[in-house]
Each structure stands twice: as C-alpha cells, then as structure tokens.
C-alpha cells in the first residue's frame, strides 16, 4: 500500500475513486451500452410503432404523418392476413423439421464423439453459418432449378414421378419446384439447421449417462427412454434453437425473392412495401406483427431456461 501511496499518478487516483465508489464505475461501464441499446435500438422500435400509426396517401403516395388506426387495420384484410398465416405456418414447419434433422448429429456429438472429433464436428456445423447466408440461399436456387442437379439426380434414379407428385399436391406444390412452398421449406431448413444443432447438442451434453443407464436397467425400451428422459432434457436446447429457426424464417425476404415465390411471405411483403410501393407505414405494421410474435415467444421460452443453452 505504501508503494502505491507514494507514487499516485492520475491513473491511480482514478482507479482509487472507482474502488471507493463502485456505483460510479458500474454507471460508466453501462452508459455507452444503455445509450446505444436504450436510445438507438429501443427508440427505433418505438419509431416503428409510430410509423404504423401513419399512412400512405392513396393518390400522391406520400406519407401522411397523422394518427390513424387504418394502417394496422389493413393487416386484417384477407390477403394480408393470409401472408401472416402463411409465414407463421412456414416458420413453425421449418422449426420442427430442423429439430428432427438436428437430433441425430447433435446426439452423436454429445454422446459418442471423442473430444477431438467433437471439436471437428463443432467446426463442421458452425462454418456454414459463417459462409455467407446469401451464397447458401443462392446454392439452393441452383440445385432446385429445372435443369439443375436435383432433377438430374432424380432422373438417374428414376424418381421424377416423386417430384411431379409433390408439385401436384395442393398447397405444397406449384407450377415448378423452385416456385413451390416445398422448395422454400427445404432451403429454409438447410439455412437454419446449424442454429438448431448447436443448442440441442449443448443441452444433450448435460444429460447424465447414468440416467440413460438407469432407465435401461429398469427395463425401459430405447424409444421410451428417448421420449421420457432424453427429449425432456433436450427441451431447453430445442427451444433455444427454435428461437432462431422461427425468427429467421419469419423475417426472411431473400429466399422467397430469389426463388420467385409469388405467394408473398411477410418479409417479402415488407420488402416490397418499402422498396417498390414506398408504403413504409404498412411495412412497419407488418414488421410489428413479426416482432410481437417473437417477443412473446422469447418471454415464454426464457422461463424454460432455454437462454442458458444459447
């Protein structure tokens, strides 16, 4: 203490002040973040809410900054309601499919892989996430296009009939593979799958091996052990993963746009309202729907402890 007391420079005096007044240090640490997230980010969310109360004038196309409930009311029009339902159903279907596909690899990583193998597989899963989302979306257009590799492969296997049957199925079908909901579904599942694998793997790592052994010793069949032990313990991971798969599908406009999807999805509608029509108030109203769905989901999932596996 003597040493430091003898040569007290300004730095020492400042750190001494912070030591005696821990609250001032905390405030200083928090201030930039609170300003950024509190003013810029939350402030922007409020701006968006306000924008939804404005409207676009029909003839001039200008934004009228007068309070109206009309723009939010437009969400209830059948065409707009369909967009919201369509997007919601797609997001739910994609999340379920990601959960199913994620399980084998996540389980293998958590339970059987050696430590070295686990590191390798972790990198294998995470690297596609960091190699351009747009590129991976583009890849699927190149796979699913008529003259592309999927049809080429199916022809070699003599399975063209399967695709024709899918295209003729009402709802999931369409005039061509690339324009069907089915194509969007596959590509979405592909794009967001790593977001599901990682938290499910983290959750499964916490399942004690002894639980599985006990279950088996007590005569449970594998399926019973899976349903009653593994699945409930994996739940926080599945919820954490589904936050991303659901949220990302809900707001995406890139994939439906590059697939030429004519039945609009929510993100696409927002993109067109802003970019083509210039109706930012209606875009804001649509976006608020996506936000409310996700905030609700986040608040519910926070209670299940899903955030610890994020």
């Amino acid at each position, binding site marked *: 203490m003597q*040493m*430091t007391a003898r040569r007290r420079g300004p*730095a*020492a005096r400042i*750190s001494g002040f912070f*030591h005696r007044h*821990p609250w001032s240090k*905390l405030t200083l*640490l928090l201030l*930039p*973040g609170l300003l*950024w*997230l*509190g003013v*810029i*980010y939350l402030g*922007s*969310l409020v*701006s*968006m809410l*306000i*924008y939804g109360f404005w409207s676009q004038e029909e003839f001039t196309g200008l934004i009228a900054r007068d309070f109206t409930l009309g723009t939010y009311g437009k969400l209830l029009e059948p065409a707009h309601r369909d967009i919201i339902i369509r997007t919601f159903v797609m997001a739910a279907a994609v999340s379920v499919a990601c959960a199913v596909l*994620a399980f*084998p690899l996540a*389980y293998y990583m958590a339970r*059987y892989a050696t430590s070295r193998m686990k*590191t390798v597989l972790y990198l*294998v899963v995470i*690297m*596609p996430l*960091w*190699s*351009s*989302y*747009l*590129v991976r979306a*583009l*890849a*699927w257009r*190149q796979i699913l296009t008529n*003259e592309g590799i999927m049809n*080429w492969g199916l022809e070699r296997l003599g399975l063209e009939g399967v695709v024709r049957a899918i295209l003729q199925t009402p709802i999931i079908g369409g005039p061509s593979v690339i324009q069907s909901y089915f194509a969007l579904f596959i590509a979405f599942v592909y794009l967001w799958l*790593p977001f599901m694998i990682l938290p499910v793997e983290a959750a499964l790592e916490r399942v004690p091996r002894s639980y599985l*052994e006990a*279950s*088996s010793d007590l005569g449970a069949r*594998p399926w019973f052990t*899976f349903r009653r032990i*593994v699945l409930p313990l994996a739940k926080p991971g599945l919820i954490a993963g589904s936050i991303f798969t659901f949220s990302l599908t*809900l*707001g995406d406009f890139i994939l439906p746009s590059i697939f030429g999807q004519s039945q609009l999805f*929510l*993100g696409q509608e927002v*993109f067109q309202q802003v970019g083509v029509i210039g109706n*930012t108030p209606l875009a*804001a109203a649509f*976006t608020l729907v996506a936000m409310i769905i*996700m905030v609700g989901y986040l608040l519910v999932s926070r209670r299940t402890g899903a*955030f610890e596996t*994020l």
Partner: protein
Amino acid sequence: MARWTGDRAGSGLRLAAFGVVVFLYFPLALIILYAFNTQSALFTFPPPGLTTRWFEVALSNPSLWAALRLSVTVATIATVIALVIGSLLAAAVYRTRFFGREAISFVVLLPIALPGIVTGIALRSSFAIAGVPFSTWTLAVAHATFCIVIVYNNVVARFRRMSPNITEASADLGATGWQTFRHVVLPNLATALLAGGILAFALSFDEVVVTTFTAGNQQTVPIWIFERLFRPRQRPVTNVAAILVIVLTFVPVLIAQLLTREERQTGS
C-alpha cells in the same frame, strides 16, 4: 433406433449424422463448381464446360471492388463500436448484481433474436423521423447494433472462466485498478476480444436484411450479389463473388472459433 447405453453409436445414428454433414456441405461445393460454368444464364447439371473466365470478369468489375470497400469500411466501424460497447457491458454484467441486470442481457440479445426486418425497419423509421440521410454511417450504426451481442457473449464467457482470485491477488500485491486491468484482466480477455471482433466483422460483412433497409443507394458485397441475382446474364459472376466472400471470412472465423474453444468445453 440407437442404443442409449452403449459406448458406440449404432450404425443408423452414424449414417444419419453423416447424412446431415453431407447435407450441410454439398450446396457449398455446388457454388464453387458453378463459378467455373461456361453457361452464362443456366445452371445445367452437369455443367457443359468449365472456364476461369468469370473470375476475370468479376475481378475487373469496379462495382464489385466498390462494394468490397464499403463492406470492409462498414464492418470495421461496426466492429470497433461493438467491441467497446459489448465488452463494457460484459464487464458491468459479470459479477456485479444490480437492478435491471437480466433486462440488459435480454435487450442485448434482441437485435439478433428478433427477425432482421425488425431491426431494419425500426432503424429505417427512426432515421426517417430524425431526418438522417442514408450513408455509410447509418449502415455502420445498424450493423453495430446486432454485432454488440457477439462481443458481449464472448467476453462474458471469458469472464466466467476467469478466476476472480487473480484480480484479488493482483490487488493484494499492491496493483492499482488500472494496473490490474492492464496487466491481468486485459491479457486474459485478449483472445476473447479478438474472436468477438472477428465474428462481429464476419457477421457485418455477410449481413443483407438489415443492410437492405438502411443502405440507400450504396451497395455492400451481399447487396451487390443480391441485386445481380435478378439479372439473367453472367450468372457465374455472382458465384465468383460468393467464393470471394467465403474465402475472405472462412480462415478468420476458423481462427476465432479455435480461440474460444476452451469456453465451450468448460461451458458444457
């Protein structure tokens, strides 16, 4: 059905796990293949011929270079902001308990947990209301907002792994708060900050949804690719740009992942 108690995975499980890995990588392989396609408007498989011509076409395109410059500028500014704010928040949240602590970790997460259109439209609305014209700075502000969480998560994880004893030991040995920070805390955080910075940079570099709504007429590399997707000519050029993006981000991201490997292992 896998046997839950065995030490070796059943062949069904191995096959399924391997299948998922193949599913994750074959589209990327295809992107690379089509960059060499001699066709300019179709994606016939197998490609009728291979050529390196598109690399010359892409690399001699000034708009791609302009887009690359903008992407790097935006990602650099966003990363610096995210590093400062993210690590300060992490330092505040770890170990100190205060009212609203949980709320902070929730709000930090929101920009990436909510759909990109939310952040995009929200910022677009507030820029419009505040009368701020779109520029490199509006993009940087937008990108920094969703990059903060990346740095924050990395630094919080490192703080958790760091023993509180080392700062106490440093103080007991007479170090001032600043000395402790400079010689004890910072060296321990260094790789977490580096990894967080790289990942924030990569996230910004790749982002397209928020960028679309906050960019005005400027083009980042992803926007450059996106706009070209609707032109029927010279399609392999977008694949070349795609490879460029992958090559530029792959190695740094791999390094970032390896730097934070220990957090993941102790975290489980």
